[in-house]
């Protein structure tokens, strides 16, 4: 079996395991390439009918192209979309002056409220180990307590593909079906599956986005890559890290750890 099929089968196994083990599951979809791949893998795992909603966290600061892509994909794949948005923080003028406070209010809090409203006991997330050192420490099934805290010093053991799936009543579980994929795997898979992704990933005027988030906190990288093939060729030679354009990774050495301990993705 080839490498991409190996990755795909492992993800499908995890997705089916999650759907079997949890009563009220949802997928988190940022419309970025990873979570779009996640949604596509759900289409494959569930034979074209995803039996749970996808949640889009709207910070109000996203690119217009992201909203357009979202609406197109919802139509095409027949997705049940749930919007999570912290309107109160937005009305109070929350903005990206402090990354830690802003991400926590507009993403983490919006997600908390959404989980509470819909009673989700598990969330599928498209994070990958190679994105950030702190994500390299994650489990496939990762429990969160009532305060959303990630107890990264005392994670449960996870052997082979035996996932301890059931959350105690006061917790939800983060499920990471793409943890074992690398950035280059995602792009090769997008190419193989002929999967449509946001146009922001492709170069315009000598620049493209390698990782998508809020317009205010994402910087494009210099690039001439205008097709998936170009991007793959670029990844072969580049030594710039994928999240180099993401401001919240840089505020200080441990911002990601702090964000994630508070329930960030």
């Amino acid at each position, binding site marked *: 079996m080839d490498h991409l099929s190996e990755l795909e089968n492992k993800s499908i196994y995890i997705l089916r395991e999650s759907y079997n083990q949890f009563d009220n599951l949802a997928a988190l979809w940022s419309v970025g390439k990873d979570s779009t791949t996640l949604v596509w893998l759900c289409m494959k795992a569930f*034979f074209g009918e995803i039996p749970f909603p996808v949640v889009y966290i709207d910070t109000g600061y996203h690119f217009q192209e992201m909203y357009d892509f979202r609406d197109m994909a919802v139509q095409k794949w027949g997705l049940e979309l749930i919007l999570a948005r912290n309107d109160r923080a937005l009305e109070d003028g929350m903005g990206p002056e402090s990354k830690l406070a802003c991400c926590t209010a507009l993403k983490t809090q919006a997600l908390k409220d959404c989980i509470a409203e819909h009673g989700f006991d598990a969330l599928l997330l498209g994070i990958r180990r190679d994105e950030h050192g702190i994500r390299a420490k994650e489990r496939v099934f990762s429990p969160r307590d009532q305060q959303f805290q990630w107890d990264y010093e005392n994670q449960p053991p996870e052997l*082979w593909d035996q996932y301890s799936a059931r959350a105690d009543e006061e917790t939800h579980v983060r499920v990471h079906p793409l943890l074992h994929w690398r950035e280059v795997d995602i792009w090769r898979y997008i190419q193989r599956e002929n999967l449509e992704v946001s146009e922001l990933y492709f170069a315009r005027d000598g620049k493209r986005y390698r990782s998508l988030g809020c317009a205010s906190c994402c910087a494009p990288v210099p690039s001439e890559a205008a097709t998936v093939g170009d991007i793959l060729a670029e990844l072969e030679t580049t030594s710039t890290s994928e999240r180099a354009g993401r401001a919240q990774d840089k505020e200080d050495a441990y911002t990601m750890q702090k964000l994630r301990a508070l329930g960030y993705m």
Partner: protein
Amino acid sequence: MDSESLAFVLVGHIDHGKSTLIGRLLHDTDSLPAGKMEEIQAAAEAEGRELEFGYIVDHLSEERKRGITIDTAQTFFTSDVRDYVIIDAPGHKEFIKNMITGASQAEAAVVMCSVAEGVQEQTRRHAYVVKLLGLEQVIVLYNKMDLVDYSEKRFGEVKRDMDAFLSRLGVTPTIEVPVSAKCGDNIAARFDRMPWYDGPTALETLDRLRKMPPPTTKPLRLPIQDVYQIDSTSIGVGRIESGVLQAGQELHFLPDDRTLTVRQIRKYLEDGVASAEAGECIGVVLDGPTPSRGQVGCPLEDRPTQTRRFRGTTFWMSAQPLQVGQADLTFKCATQEQPCTVSRLNERIDSGSLEHLETEAGRLDETEVGELVLETAEPVVLESFYDVRELGRFVLLKGHTVVAGGIVTHTQD
């Protein structure tokens, strides 16, 4: 373009240089992103410590402050031959469950042993876990050669101890290399400081490892994972754990003891799938009621064992000891799940020394290994771990927590 990827776990005693080796491998194979060295330099300065390669993998602030790895992490790098996933395992006894978590995802193991300290408790414990989990390809790196003036004599002494221990375990190392992860000797490059060593470097050694193919030549085993209704068709989904499935063939399901015909193999957007093999997640449409989760499909003439009582070896990972007769455990193997009890504990073994602590014991403590007899409430479908691994390995849960991992050694008591 397609590439091959091989995952290996890096194990060994605390401070024998595992994290340093990862940093060195990434650095020497140009696998570090631009700015990474500068970033870890800044983090080291902020905490008033010397720059260490270990910073590349030790990402938690507590890990860097204490200079130890707490949790397993996975790092990627590429050689001229293939892509690698390095699974870094913590060397502290208290984080052994993280080490086992990491090792269970690996296809090969690299044991790091400092020649300054020699074989230590976690060296032995980790090697034992590697053996238990059935990792057959084992590389030993004798690290910190720089601290012993690259002495061939010292290398020989530690190697003798290690070989003696490994042979007690029944492990034959694929290859053994003297290295200095800190200075780079015999990692990706050869320097002239160990002229007495003419074997391969650590990187060449890794490139010689074999990629383990999925068990397609073993008998067919298809545990049902779930049943979906799609367009009023009932589809049983599951992953083929071993062997090959053909559309149109008969499948016998255990423990139900029913034979059904495979009308269709289903994959999304693929019509007329004729066959599927080990490792593939598929759906099957059958000519009768679809068996439920936990049923195992197999050929009529080549069935696994169905039993309520069997023998296994387990590694206990909970601070609360296992008590013989304790009634609140759950057995999980593939997609099967059953309440179970440990009815006998034949041997209690110290995983750090291999010492047999007790026979016919009543309890098993954290980090100890037990050879035991398990009884499940209803029959389960099993194989010896040495025949079909996927149906021969299991976990035990207490409540929602995994408290032990184990392998089936005898499918009948």
